[in-house]
């Protein structure tokens, strides 16, 4: 190859120019003009039911383009958020945050925009009060707009109930388990009756039951003031003993959670009840369908939950401070969590609204594919009833570690036949190892 010096100089200039182009392409102008064309990036996860709504917003706001990313599971989304948060780079304009992450999110709440600067105070009565409370950081800044909540009801299989000589009708099932005064004692007692009649398990595995037990306390793994509250916690120990006794009596089917043999466990009669927050109803339907079943498999949804009201999960839309279009992002987040949009999300994905007016909307209380699958149970109405009395629990920084890594192994132990005391002590050892002396 033979290049004249001039050509080389020209090439060098061209290369420098190309570099400069790349450089300018990377840096957006910081003076964001909200009237000019802007692009908002949104990151969500799982099935939040928002995907169909973006096009409508773009139509109403011609200057806005929405670039949405949906990550398959909450766990992967958490890793994604943590990585980008740690790098201080790459976060979207709107980041969906799950309730289980709150402990970690609140530790860095300064890196989220205080939505009161963009009109949060005008719309804060939209949500059930405890949902708003969860999104408020210790300094009183509102950092998230609630999308859905996860009030828990009881999924049960009416065919299996009837085969065991128990009532199959959902009102009678609620009555059988104690109605509004349902307790865990009663739940395990009826479970033992069922086991005696059929020899089969009562629930799929102990993890979700333990989750519900802890979530419905006013104080869970942490006290309100943020102190660890696990060791010598008589309430938790008492509940653990009940759970271990249930597993020992053969009430747990010892399934692997989130797998259930590709859904087969839901159709082969392995267990008769299942802990069901609103968003779980879609999961049950999906599992049954994956195993080749349908509405005739007998699953139903009862307006009762042992131990009182419980909430599991639910999400928020936040605006990270790295966003260059904070005002526009906050407006979009407010719109996505308004009544019509939350109703649409419920119809698309079964996510029960955290907005009070949406909960009683005909679109939520009426019939849908989901109600048809659950033997025409008025799913929206039942969830609305299950949502009353839910308390917002303080989630500490290591809440999810305690739930998954400290109690996870012990839950598997009692399901595999280890006695409750040994399993509890093993959990306390892990607590010291992973949380106390970290």
């Amino acid at each position: 190859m033979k290049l004249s010096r001039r050509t080389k100089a020209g090439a060098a200039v061209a290369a420098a120019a190309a570099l400069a182009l790349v450089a300018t392409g990377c840096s957006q102008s910081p003076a964001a003009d909200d009237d000019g064309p802007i692009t908002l990036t949104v990151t969500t996860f799982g099935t939040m039911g928002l995907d169909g709504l973006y096009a409508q917003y773009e139509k109403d706001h011609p200057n806005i383009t929405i670039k949405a990313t949906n990550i398959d599971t909450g766990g992967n989304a958490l890793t994604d958020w943590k990585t980008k948060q740690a790098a201080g780079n790459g976060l979207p304009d709107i980041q969906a945050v799950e309730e289980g992450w709150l402990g970690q999110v609140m530790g860095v709440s300064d890196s989220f925009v205080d939505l009161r600067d963009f009109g949060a105070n005008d719309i804060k009565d939209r949500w059930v009060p405890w949902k708003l409370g969860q999104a408020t950081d210790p300094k009183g800044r509102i950092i998230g707009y609630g999308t859905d909540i996860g009030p828990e009801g009881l999924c049960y299989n009416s065919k299996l109930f009837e085969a065991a000589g128990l009532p199959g009708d959902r009102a009678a099932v609620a009555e059988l388990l104690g109605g509004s005064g349902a307790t865990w004692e009663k739940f395990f007692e009826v479970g033992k009756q069922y086991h005696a009649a059929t020899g089969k398990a009562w629930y799929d595995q102990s993890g979700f039951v333990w989750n519900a037990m802890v979530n419905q306390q006013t104080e869970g793994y942490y006290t309100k003031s943020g102190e660890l509250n696990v060791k010598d916690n008589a309430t938790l120990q008492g509940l653990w003993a009940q759970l271990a006794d249930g597993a020992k009596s053969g009430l747990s089917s010892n399934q692997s959670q989130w797998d259930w043999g590709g859904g087969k466990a839901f159709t082969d009669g392995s267990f008769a009840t299942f802990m069901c927050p609103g968003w779980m109803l879609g999961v049950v339907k999906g599992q049954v369908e994956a195993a080749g079943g349908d509405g005739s498999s007998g699953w139903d949804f009862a307006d009762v939950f042992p131990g009182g009201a419980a909430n599991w999960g639910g999400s928020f839309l936040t605006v990270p401070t790295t966003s260059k279009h904070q005002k526009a992002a906050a407006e979009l987040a407010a719109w996505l969590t308004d009544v019509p949009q939350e109703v649409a999300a419920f119809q698309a994905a079964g996510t029960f609204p955290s907005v009070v007016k949406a909960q009683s909307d005909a679109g939520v209380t009426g019939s849908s594919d989901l109600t048809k699958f659950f033997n025409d149970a008025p799913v929206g109405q039942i969830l609305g009833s299950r949502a009353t009395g839910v308390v917002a629990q303080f989630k500490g920084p290591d809440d999810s570690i305690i739930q998954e890594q400290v109690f996870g192994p012990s839950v598997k132990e009692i399901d595999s036949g280890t006695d409750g005391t040994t399993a509890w002590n093993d959990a306390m050892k892990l607590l010291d190892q992973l949380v106390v002396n970290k």
Partner: protein
Amino acid sequence: MSTMTGRAVAPGGTRLTLRQKLGRWDVRYSPYLYVAPFFILFGLVGLFPLAYTFVVSLNKWDLLRGPGEWIGFDNFAAELADPLLWNSIANTFSIFLLSAVPQLIVALIIAAVLDQNLRAKTFWRMSVILPYVVTPVAVALIFSNLFGEKYGLINNMLQGIGLDPVLWKTETIPGHLAIATMVNWRWTGYNALILLAAMQAVPRDIYESAAIDGAGAMRRFFSITVPSIRPTFIFVIITATIGGLQIFTEPKLFDASSSIPGGVFRQYQTTVLYLWDMAFNRGNFGKAAAIAWILFLIIVLIGVVNFVLSRRIASSESTRPARRALRSSRGQR
């Protein structure tokens, strides 16, 4: 560029013109410029992360909140005293041995079979490499399903012939065996092909004369084939070791829904998985960096052992050819 190198020879005695100086610099420094991209890239993505990880490991460093106080080697001390680290190292070596040993033996046998005069040679050779083409993620998902405790095919068959189901995902040794199976399925054929290539290079007349002297097939295999492919075998062992110590995907996806990566009791959590868990689930970046460095040192140590062993084996085998080569190179000078 050939014209530029021609300009390098400056006429003796006279002052160099700028043009000549440039030409001389060109010769002297451009080679460094040409190799620079590799070293710049290596510095950016190899050396810098290594050094930075070391700096991180000396700090209390939360993933989200960033660097805290400087604590020297406390993270290393804490990790070396942590039973969970040793658990992960034991798991790594157990899975490595369970996979590498049977894998290499079977690969050797397959290679020996393929080395015979078979019909449709290419078909058989292509077939053994097929598992290698499948991505590890797909392999892990399929095997995870096969090894399911309640609904998996393998346990169904065991129960079909009246045996107890095996708790592949709860108990330690069955878990290690299942993961080793995935690794073996993927890598045996690959190693067999490399060994086959070495076997093909063994001169056929040695076999013929051995056969004439009355050596049977087994004798020929152990006395001719195995010693002849020893250098290749060492290469295969080294690559299998490096791969084995970095095993991640298979145990991560073996029980994908588990809340703890590597099994609920960490019964098949390898060191790389433990590192990942420490960084991204438990959020302790400082300790994760310390684990990364401990793993790095272990791999370096094993690399050195490998190097020494293979040098010893290679030199004891090829002393005479080496000497001959030395002599001929001296003669050339």
